[in-house]
């Protein structure tokens, strides 16, 4: 018995909402992506904890997939950050509002 599952979930929830706050509040694109990373890690923690709790490997495997997807996501999104910065000379999220309806 390491800890009750509840504590683990509390930890990952905290991390997740810290990431969410970062995504919602920051205006720097890079910081927003960092927030996304935090959230993804929190999810990973939940998965590993669940995997440990039920003693099944599936959760850990999901984390590996999560990581692979994350690296794909990060490579694309950072390339887009570079691209956007090239277009606007800025990475403030407020300067990208061309998707206005």
């Amino acid at each position, binding site marked *: 018995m390491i800890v009750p599952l509840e504590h683990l979930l509390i930890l990952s929830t905290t991390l997740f909402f810290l990431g*969410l706050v970062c995504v919602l509040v920051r205006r720097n694109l890079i910081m*927003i992506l960092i927030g996304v990373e935090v959230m993804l890690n929190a999810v990973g923690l939940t998965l590993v904890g669940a995997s440990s709790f039920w003693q099944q490997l599936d959760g850990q495997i999901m984390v590996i997939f999560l990581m692979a997807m994350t690296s794909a996501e990060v490579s694309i999104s950072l390339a887009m950050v570079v691209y956007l910065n090239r277009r606007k000379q800025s990475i403030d*999220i*407020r300067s*990208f509002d061309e998707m206005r309806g």
Partner: protein
Amino acid sequence: MLALVLILPLVGGLFNACFGSRLPRPLQALIASGAVFASFLAALACWPQATGAGLHVNLFTWLQSGGFTAEVGLLFDPLAAIMTLMVTGVAGLIHIYAASYMADEHDQARFFALLNLFVFAMLTIILADNLLLMFLGWEGVGFCSYALIGFWYRKAENARAGRKAFIVTRIGDLFFTVGLLWLFSLFGTIGIEAINGRAAELDPTTLTIISLLLLGGACGKSAQLPLMSWLPDAMAGPTPVSALIHAATMVTAGVYLLCRMFPLVSLSTMALDVIAVVGMLTALYAATCALAQTEIKRVLAYSTMSQVGYMFLAVGLGSVSAAMFHLLTHAFFKALLFMGAGCIIQLAGHENNIFLMGGLRKRSRSVFWLFLIGLLCLAGAPLTDGFFSKDLILATAFAHGDPFHLSLYGLGVLTAGLTSLYSFRLAYLVFGGDYRGEELPHAVSKVMIWTLVPLGISGLAGGFLNLPHFIGGHAWLSHWLGRDNEVPNLSLQTEYYLLALAFGTFLLGWLIAHLRYHRFVEREPGPVSGFFLSGWRCDAFFDRLLIRPFRQLCRFCWQGVDLALIDGLVESFSRACFVWGHVLRYLADGKISRYLQSFAWGLLLIVSWFLLRAIA
């Protein structure tokens, strides 16, 4: 060992495709032709195992899903063995020829890579023990043919010819695919032997339809009526390609398919008759077309079509051995003819038009004699291989004895006469008289001529493969294929009459050709020869029959259905959306953080709903 036969050309092709352009030119050619020759040797080594039911090799399981299993398995029975030897042998010679012919081209590596891949695909067709793998090779052959016809893709008409070949054969492939899937759904297997073994379980109608579907596939690949129009255009490709693909190998794939599936096809007399009729009509049609062509390669293309028509006829007559015999002999002399034509074109300074040739006999005696051997074989001069194989087919037709087959026989004889006529027309126009072209003739490399020699010898001697009994032969090929019973059972006297008749048509054709062409006279093409020249105006016919109505239909769908009906509906709908969108656009202000916030609110809603449900 058998796998080696298949893998070597693949490896050679891939190697050339990947690294070829970095290598020196002679090495590219060496790799390509070396791979094919090695494959030939491997096939020779496998030869002794090809007796009876043949050698069965299962390489690996390709697909497995549910009850469906596709093995990559090879079947090396007598039929496949003969084809394999022929394909690798002829292809090897053509590779060497091509090394010399294409020596000054760019992209030699691409050429040889494709050529090798083509050989690989062709061998896949031949050696496949199931229909799916065969289909793979079938498509591979189609693709390589497309890429090779359009090898000089910078010229629009070459690219168009490649496209045409691809699309037309694709129509045939569609029939083949449908037949394949149907067979699978009926038998639950795609193994050729299994299907052949259980073919008798089918009811006759289904059998006939499936046979006809297979015939459709074969027609596409082998340029038989009505899918024949791509072959003459395919002559836009480099000459070695024409020699390899459009003479010796690919066009015979259809015949091979029918021979492979013969136990199935032969159960339906109706299908056999259709095959015979298609073959005969094609043979006649192509022979008439060949009479009027002005380009040397197009003449040969039509003659190929015509000869393949004979093979179909043979299959339709139920004589696989006759078809295979003619296939073999045809491969030899047609490859010889095409490669000789390549030499002639070079001699005449890259001129295709036979009316601008003439007198080439003096330019190069060796080319003249070798080409003449090819033409004699084609025309069916006695004692050449073409004579024996064609005669076997005609004798088989005659031996059936009923009016239907007798009329086929009559047409066959007529076609043979026409064949002789256009062969000698070609000979006189190209070699007789004086040189009429403007370009100074070029020299032809020794290598090219030397590669013709083995083909010439086999053209002369190929007939001994299957010498009929009545002149002391043993019909070795029929025996080897295990089809002794197919040898026509005619009295000696009839046989001699038939031979004499064949000889007579040959002589008659020669005589007409001699009278008409031994002295060159410039003639405007008359209406008949113009009709023949354009291939009975088939392209125009197809255009009117298929393409224009299709266009009309498309226009109707576009204007009537799409623009008026659907667009009207959609537009009114979209107008409504537009109005609504104007209202809703205030929500989407492009501020990404606001979007993200609304995600969060949504999340809150979802979570609280879960919470409420959990409490309740």
